[in-house]
């Protein structure tokens, strides 16, 4: 029996042909998702668009994770652009943060140093009366020394 190779495409099925479904068989524009990959439509004129699904600039967005919120089609997103973690709804960046004793002020979160292979490692969202709450953790692997650094953030926004 041939050795199995695990490739995580999450709910995107570029390999659907194997089970006789209509689906993509060639991955052309894929971006990293939590422990996997998802397709993205690349634009060059703006970093994000709320039309046509998630769209990202290949020049700036290196990692993107999205979770549905509410009862419609809204998405809470976390992504990395220009070495910073960005958070927003449908790709619209939240550009400021309040602080309630958390000690983390300012936005966006800036990485201390430029690095390689930065990606959103974990992202989760939940809702409560009047709030959408999120946790996000990103990792950066530095070239020298080869060190993984966890960058994390928790916050909420009023609905």
């Amino acid at each position: 029996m041939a050795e199995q190779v695990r490739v995580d495409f999450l709910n995107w099925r570029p390999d659907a042909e194997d089970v006789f479904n209509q689906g993509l068989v060639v991955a052309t524009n894929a971006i990293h998702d939590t422990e996997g990959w998802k397709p993205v439509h690349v634009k060059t004129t703006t970093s994000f668009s709320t039309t046509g699904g998630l769209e990202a600039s290949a020049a700036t967005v290196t990692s993107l994770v999205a979770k549905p919120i509410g009862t419609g089609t809204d998405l809470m997103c976390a992504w990395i652009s220009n070495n910073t973690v960005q958070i927003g709804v449908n790709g619209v960046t939240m550009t400021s943060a309040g602080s309630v004793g958390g000690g983390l002020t300012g936005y966006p979160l800036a990485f201390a140093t430029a690095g390689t292979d930065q990606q959103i490692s974990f992202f989760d969202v939940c809702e409560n009366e009047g709030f959408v709450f999120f946790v996000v953790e990103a990792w950066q692997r530095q070239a020298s020394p080869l060190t993984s650094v966890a960058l994390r953030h928790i916050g909420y926004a009023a609905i």
Partner: protein
Amino acid sequence: MTSKISPGWIGSSSYVVPINVGALACTTFRDFIVIGGLTTNRYAIRWCSIGDPTDWPEPATDDARAKQAGQESFPSEHGYVTALAGNDFYMYIFQENAISKGTYVGGDIVISVDIFEEDRGCVRGGRLVQVDDMVFFESDRGFHMLLNDQITDIGYGKVDDSYGG
């Protein structure tokens, strides 16, 4: 408890940082926001003041006890807390190789936790989705559904053989 996002909120440009700690997962349980897999203790969960997700007093303080905020650690042999799922009545805490059920009891304990599965768990963050009271997750053995404390191996056979780890 779930609120619809109003169109007017889309494009909102501010959020609030309530707590200086990171986590791998979060969920809503009754009147609490619960986070798990803390950066300060990957085997622990922590929850906010009752009815106030903006308030996260330091656990084991008088302020926390008065507001029923707290923190609970789990056995490290079952791995990190990787995912959470909650509703108005109970919550599930997923470690890499175990699942616990939490119920609200109030008092000094606040949330009582019992492990009921010590084999299957959520293999890592982002591998769980909740649909009403059904919780679908992936363990290191395959895909499962948890409903009413019963785990069904929904991927048994071809699916787990093809996609399982």
